[in-house]
């Protein structure tokens, strides 16, 4: 009887002391070694369990129960402590990893498309949505494409409207002076489009927009640049009229500027169109914004491209991309577009 009671007492003490010790452990590694000391193969608990077979049968079950109870008590204590220490560890890690996200170290610059490109692409998208394709052409042009084919023969007084930069032809074999120039408008692309369509048999009908860079002999200031960008629309078909032109401009106005705005035409003069008009777009404040020029393609221009003006008619509408970007984004000085100051580029 004595041995049996001794063992029960020892188990009770073992469990109580063990639980108390486990609750004092602050480290997961120590917890592991303590757990194996109390519960492992070498533990006193294991010894006692092995000693069960030497006991009298009547004692085995009570002692077995007591053993299991002590084991469960210790295992639970280990688990509780482990959970507690895990939580503490996560808490310590989180605390250690805390970041002030308003610290801006190592911030990378974002890339920005130039606002001219943004405007250019938006305009292209609007015209593509209306059914147009997009054409481009060379920036170095001949006098014929830039002027003569556009009903501006060499002696035409209106040539002075375009301050033209000519290429020095000394380095170019077989090219006479003032034959090569930097195109003063995107209209030569219209000429190329028409000639190409006629020659390849792909048109008319022609529905194309020509965005591009153009050049003028001009000093850069707040409202002028020697290099800027235009976009021109060209339609050639049987029987297209001023009414189609005005309707197309109106559709463009609503698509690009917004549904509440409208457009108006004012008489103007361009050698390559007749009738010619200026296009104004209404503004939310009730004023009119002069956007660009338009007109019916002049019969001489159609003829120069191999199209019979009795059979075909056409219209064109062109305007400055830079000016539009300037107005839309409140840019005060056009020179900001070419200064390449990152402080400007990153704003838009």
């Amino acid at each position, binding site marked *: 009887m004595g041995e049996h009671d001794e063992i029960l007492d020892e188990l009770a003490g073992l469990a109580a002391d063990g639980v108390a010790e486990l609750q004092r452990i602050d480290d997961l590694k120590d917890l592991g070694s303590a757990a194996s000391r109390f519960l492992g193969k070498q533990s006193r608990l294991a010894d006692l369990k092995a000693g069960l077979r030497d006991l009298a049968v009547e004692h085995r079950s009570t002692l077995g129960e007591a053993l299991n109870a002590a084991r469960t008590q210790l295992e639970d204590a280990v688990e509780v402590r482990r959970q507690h220490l895990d939580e503490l560890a996560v808490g310590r890690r989180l605390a250690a990893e805390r970041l002030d996200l308003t610290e801006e170290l190592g911030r990378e610059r974002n*890339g920005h498309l130039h606002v001219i490109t943004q405007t250019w692409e938006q305009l292209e998208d609007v015209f593509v949505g209306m059914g147009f394709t997009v054409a481009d052409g060379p920036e*170095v042009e001949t006098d014929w494409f830039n002027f003569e084919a556009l009903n501006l023969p060499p002696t035409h*007084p209106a040539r002075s409207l375009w301050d033209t*930069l000519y290429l*020095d032809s000394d380095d170019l074999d077989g090219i006479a002076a*003032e034959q090569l120039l930097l195109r003063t408008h995107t209209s030569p692309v219209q000429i190329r489009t028409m000639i190409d369509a006629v020659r390849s048999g792909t048109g008319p009908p022609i529905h194309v927009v020509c965005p591009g860079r153009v050049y003028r002999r001009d000093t850069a200031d707040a409202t002028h640049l020697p*290099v800027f960008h235009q976009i021109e629309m060209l339609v050639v078909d049987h029987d297209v009229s001023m009414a189609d032109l005005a*309707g197309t401009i109106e559709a463009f106005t609503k698509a690009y500027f917004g549904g509440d705005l409208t457009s108006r035409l004012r008489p103007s003069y361009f050698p390559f169109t007749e009738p010619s008009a200026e296009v104004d777009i209404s503004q939310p404040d009730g004023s009119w914004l002069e956007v660009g020029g338009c007109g019916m393609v002049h019969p001489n221009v159609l003829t120069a491209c191999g199209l019979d003006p009795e059979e075909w008619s056409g219209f064109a509408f062109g305007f400055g991309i830079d000016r539009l970007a300037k107005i839309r984004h409140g840019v005060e000085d056009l020179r900001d577009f070419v200064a390449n100051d990152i*402080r400007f580029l990153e704003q838009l």
Partner: protein
Amino acid sequence: MKFSRQWVSEYTPVEDTPEEFSALLSDLGLEVEDLVVVGGVPREVVVARVADVRAHPDADRIRLVDVDPGDGTIVQVCCGASNMAPGDLVALAPVGTTMPDGMEIASRRMRGQVSDGMLCSARELTLGEDHEGIMILPADLVVGESLAEALVIQPDVHVDVDVLPNRPDALSVLGIARDVAARRATAIVEPRPLPVLSSGPIEGVSVAVDAPDLCGRFAVCVLDDVTSGPSPDWLIRRLKSAGMRPVNVVVDVTNFVMLELGQPSHAFDLECVPEGHLGVRWARPGETVTTLDGVQRRLEPSDGVVVDRDDRVLTLAGVMGGASTEISESTSSVLVEVAWWDPPSIAATAARLGLHSEASLRFKRGVDTAIGPLALQRIASLLVEFTGARVRPGMLEVLGDLPAPAVIDLRLQQLNRRLGTAFSAVEVTTILESMGFVVERGSTTPEDAEVLRVTVPTWRPDCTIEVDLTEEVARMYGMSRLPRRRLRIEQRGHLSEAQRRRRAIRRALVGAGVSEAMPLPFLAPGDLERCDLPADGLLIANPLVSEESVLRTSLLPGLVSAVAYNVTHRSEGIRLFEIGRVFGVGARATTDIEASVNAGRVLDGEREVLGVALAGRTAPSSVHLLEAVLESIGILRPSLLNEAVPGLHPGRSARVVIDVGDGSTDVGVVGELHPVVLTRHGIHEPVAWLELDLSVILALPVVARRAQPVSRYPSADVDLAFVVDDSVPAIAVRQAILEAGGALVVAVRLFDVFRSDALGADCRNLAYSVRFQALDRTLNDREVADLRQRIIESVTTSLGVDLRS
């Protein structure tokens, strides 16, 4: 063209508000550049009676004037004038008045005396030129009344319109009035001067025209006993409203008639014209004339001249007068000449000599072919009226090849087809006739096919073909009133593949943190050399400044300058790209229309290029970006050939080559800018550089990328390090690994490069991680070991490198 609304209203009634007037002119194609309301006598200015005039105790020149403004008070005003007496009615601007010149009248003290307002001169109220004293008003006005109401003074409107090149008629006030009258269907009253001249010989004067192709009309008259002096106020007001300054009565009258009728004229001092003879002919080579501005001009046979009895050149026809016959204060006999000159000749002479005068502007656009005699009458009658001059009897007129008014057949159907309208013949006729065109109706069956025979008025020489008339009808009808029709486009709108790729490249760059720059494409001489690039850009023949006289052959100078600019503004580490044209040298050009349409360009060397400058980055950054950019348009794994590239660090640059079907093609360069180039630009950080020829890349055939199956079996990694001589590029090692490993190599990653003394000076260690994987099974250890061995043997023997153990 500047004028006033009041002036226009002399010929046709105009009662619009300034806003309405401006809108009307713009809708007629006379775009209003500037509009100023003038003359408005301020509402606050009242009629006041002078009660007392006293001397200022401390200032001799100032009078103290007590005036009664009619409200039962007496106001003291200090006044610099002394032409008023008690009882006179004067114009008082009380305190708080804003004068036409913007001055605000305030209560103030002058030498200790209070002044509560201002007594106004005529000029201060824009009612005249007089500024000698204050205005003494008619005695029948009511004291206390607003002066503007008392005198029924309407403010005038001064307008500046932009006259289009096809509107020579609008270079005269009468022409503008005609347009207004046509739109408003109001009457037009043309000036009818007294017929002071009658055709016939003039004593002591003769004219001869030897160049009828130059001179369509040459008409002269003579006025004797002309006295010099100022022009009347009204005429000066008219001139000023047109932006002209009064000179003397003779000049003023000729200017006035030019503005009114669009006909320039020339006044000679008859005493300076030997025997009163004038001749007209083309100039001879080598001739010279000294023009009114004192400059001696060398003439060409394409210039028209007026000569004297001795065949000496007096004036440059239609462009500028000569100094020898200029009117002076002592001139008493004036010979006035009006002419019609051939417009292209005048345009050519004015352009060649850079002489752009009000006269040459009108002559080159085309003066009304019929207005000459009327203009001469108008000038003569005004000079008689203003100066008491006498007309020397007679008027000489010689006609040359004066163009007859054009007669144009206008097909109604064609007009409606072009405008999208359904105008009837009557409507078109009414519109054209309102503008002075003479219309002869044709047969009326079928009605819509009617052809109108239209005679153009003499003041519209710009109208020569059918479409000119179509435009006039649209203009006068109102372009904004034309119908609008929604166009149906069958074609599906789309971007071309090249345009889509260009956009994809831009987005890849922006995604990589690179911003788009747009430098001017012009360079200064020396810019290319500063970038170590060949110094032979094409030159601009007529640059405005030498800084913009060379066409760029590369985007490098522009982007380097952009980086440098930002560095000076303390923005470092910036990344910029540009897509733009460059203009190659040694290029050939074609002016042949067919050839250039075929090639899509005129200049062989015009190419579209992408340039990228990454400040603060070294060459490898540009290689990474190169791969990202090419991958965005479906081009994988470009090859790099280490090579010195002009402008770049010779040891850190490579050509970029890509495979194209049956071979490979150069598409650009990568690397790092040459440190010396950077130093020259004041940049003290490395700048990685990438340049791609988009003319080539965007035109590559589109090949849809094929998906490769992804293995579901485990992969095995093997690390291999080789000691490689610097002469062997890493790309060769990679290539050798791939070739030896065959299809089971799914990735080759260079993960370390190092140099050490032990390796030697010209070698480096390249460490690769090679991943093996099969599509259909798990590779076993033996297979992996075999592959590893095969790769090692192949790489070491083919490249002569050592495995690092």
